[in-house]
């Protein structure tokens, strides 16, 4: 999947295509769920928030303006709001519990840090890269290999590896600029 197909998904949603929600969920389900899970820590809570995000996105699809931002960025914003709501509910529940039990203080949960969201967005974009480029980027990030070694190991021309790296970094950067929070 590439940039243009992300735009196709956004166009499907804007155009009110009946199967648009399925397309949006297929493309962005892991992103939304991962952010929710990281923030909430409990699978069932993350599932509930994921459901709320996509249902809300579907119902308010008229408010998604492709001219003002990306679909991914819009969904990240909705996710952060729903996560904040879920954390507030939890805090309220724990205060009630506290009154009932007179127990020790309950630590307030924290909203996901902006950098955490950005790292998941980055992971999402990395997963969208074509396989060869993804492998080059993964080796660049997580192994000690230089680009020359990567070229030899993968049997790719040096120029190809360099261009994978340059374009890969630029693509990750564009995605972070569009959909990230702190970046």
């Amino acid at each position, binding site marked *: 999947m590439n940039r243009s197909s992300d735009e196709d998904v956004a166009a499907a949603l804007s155009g009110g295509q009946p199967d648009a*929600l*399925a397309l949006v969920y*297929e*493309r962005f389900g892991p992103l939304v769920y*991962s952010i929710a899970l990281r923030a909430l820590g409990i699978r069932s809570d993350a599932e509930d928030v994921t*459901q709320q995000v996509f249902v809300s996105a579907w119902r308010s699809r008229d408010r998604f303006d492709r001219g003002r931002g990306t679909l991914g960025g819009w969904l990240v914003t909705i996710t952060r709001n729903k996560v904040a709501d879920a954390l507030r509910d939890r805090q309220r529940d724990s205060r009630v519990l506290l009154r009932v039990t007179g127990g020790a203080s309950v630590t307030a949960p924290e909203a996901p840090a902006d950098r955490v969201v950005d790292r998941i967005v980055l992971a999402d974009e*990395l*997963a969208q890269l074509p396989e060869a480029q993804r492998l080059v980027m993964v080796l660049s990030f997580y192994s000690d290999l230089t680009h020359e070694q990567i070229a030899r190991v993968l049997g790719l021309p040096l120029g190809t590896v360099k261009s994978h790296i340059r374009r890969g970094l630029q693509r990750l950067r564009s995605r972070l600029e569009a959909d990230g929070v702190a970046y």
Partner: protein
Amino acid sequence: MSHIDPDILALRALGETAGTAADAEHAASCARCRAELARLTEVVRLARDTDPRETLQAPPPQLWDRIAAAAGVSPALHNGSLNGAAPAGNSAAPSTLPIQKEQVAPEDSRESRPSRRRLAWPRGRLASAMAGLAAGVIIGIGGGVAVSQLSPAPSARVVARIELSPLPQFPQWQGTTGTAVMRSTASQQEIVITLRAPARPGFYEAWLLARDGVSMISLGDLSAAHTGTFTMPAGVDLRNYSRIDISLQPFDGSTQHSKASVVRGSLPAAALGAGATSRG
């Protein structure tokens, strides 16, 4: 004055020494190039900074039905990819990400297994993280084996690159592919594994398999990333433990091989030469 070549900037963002003295001089005086480098460096930092819990995770397959029902839309999907396979994008796209720092198994992998399982997260979370992350993984060996003698690198020398592939008796893993790269550093031998496999309940784990086909040593799990880096256990005779096997393991608490071999392959003879017994 011409700006720094974008290729060079990208390599510098990754921490490589690239470019000429003129480039360095230019960077010192050009705000635009400096800003560009800073932005790319931040991307690299975010990528390298990633916590295993922040990898991309696939939602459980049944969640879509709930969402479709709540939104009042048809639950039909385009390629059925949410029914347990890669959840995102086209059917060939991996659903998870290789976003994890190196996984390094301690010297004795047998000893290390229990501690590896004793991760910092509650089991449910770990399980969900792994289940999601496993979605796109693979490893196999056995197909083509390419051995390249490479020039000495700053820290590691690549000894071999091995294509991994499924066993003929397990047709369900056809299409699974992967790569294992063996490398030597001054003190140890490491193997970097990249997998591309479908999402399945459980997680993928890498093993060294002995010639008797029975004895095996766990290298570690690959579920949190498509890529894992493992230290070859010290003192292991790689002439005996000469095969790499990737299994699909259920979340049953057992540390034994599940007998579900996904892909397998042999270490190339050249890689077993001088360093036949893995240094510690």
